[in-house]
């Protein structure tokens, strides 16, 4: 509950404050957000499976974000930034979908 509240408060704060995204972070933010979403869906699934672990969640959340940003950074340096971030988004999207499917089975039994 607190976690859901945190999410809601975060969205509201982001919409209200509308901070300028620093130019350094700009290319990484979207990928980082998608990676974090993946971690959240994984955590939700784990919770429904009854194996949720907060430390695992924290570590996976942070490492997902860091690795995603790192891949994008590396891609930019290698000159394949656009393709690599597309790849990252695709992979994370697939994971999100499979996690969502597991969650759906739990919640709707279908």
């Amino acid at each position, binding site marked *: 509950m607190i976690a859901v509240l945190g999410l809601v408060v975060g969205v509201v*704060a982001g919409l209200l404050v509308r901070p300028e995204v620093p130019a350094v972070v700009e290319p990484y933010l979207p990928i980082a957000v998608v990676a974090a979403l993946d971690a959240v869906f994984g955590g939700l699934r784990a919770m429904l499976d009854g194996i949720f672990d907060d430390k695992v969640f924290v570590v996976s959340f942070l490492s997902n974000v860091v690795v995603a940003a790192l891949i994008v950074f590396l891609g930019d340096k290698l000159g394949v930034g656009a393709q690599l971030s597309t790849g990252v988004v695709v992979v994370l999207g697939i994971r999100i979908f499979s996690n969502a499917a597991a969650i759906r089975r739990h919640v709707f039994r279908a």
Partner: protein
Amino acid sequence: MRTMSNQDEKPENGRSADIRDEQPERQPLRRELPEEVPPPAAAAGADAASGAEDTARAEGAAGAEDTAADGRSAEEGSEAALTGRQRLVKGLWPPRFTRAQLVVALLLFGLGFGLAVQVASNSDNDSALRGARQEDLVRILDELDDRTQRLEDEKQGLEKQRQELENSSDQAEEARRQTAEKEKQLGILAGTVGAQGPGITMTIEDTKGTVQADMLLDAIQELRAAGAEAIQINGVRVVASTYLTDAGKSVAVDGNKIEAPYRFQVIGKPQDLEPALNIPGGVVQTLEKEQATVTVERSDKIVVDALRAAKRPDYARSSSQ
């Protein structure tokens, strides 16, 4: 969430068991559950033992899973009894202010914040380019440059065309103007337009009817030699094709009979025309010998307004061009 609170209390064992027990072993365990379910008494005992030490266990049945490490199968059993939906509901309500909840809430706050910021900055109208990558921006810039170049070229072409059109229309205008000018000049010579300017008026009084066509012709020749540009006699324009004939006591000019006094209106330089008529043995003396009276007077403004229709030549054609 439940296991999380479990770890909060029993740090090492509980968690490591949890982590080790992830996916692979899970399904088999579940299937074997019916056999592995421990006797209710054992579970209840464990529940009582752990429930005593933990106030958060007040959730009742949830306490069953929070048994010690060797109570793994017991935990599995009670977990299986809970469906995912029930776990979700239980995780949502009532809210628990545990450290884990707060940490997760913090992370999710960060996620929500980033999400909202990204969405907001992406949906700004002017910042369609803001999220673009460097190479994309370079490409877009190149394309814009190309486009600018193309449009610039097109603009230059069109301006050149416009210049040419203006020039040609200027030229056409100029040609028209010159043509009109020429037409007027030629019209004065051909007698199709009126003319005015300095000149002289010569009046020949012929009371006795002695003046003949050849005398008038001499006068005209003399005037032309002196630079007369437009001549009319008694309302008849004198042009290149003019002929004079005798008609009884008077004279016909181009077939138009005119009566004395013969009145010449001549445009030209008066200082040349008057002496030309008055030279000794000239027109005036010749006419006076025939007892005609000749008066010549200069004027600053002579109007030659007798006109003659332009006549297209039947045979002669321009040989120029």
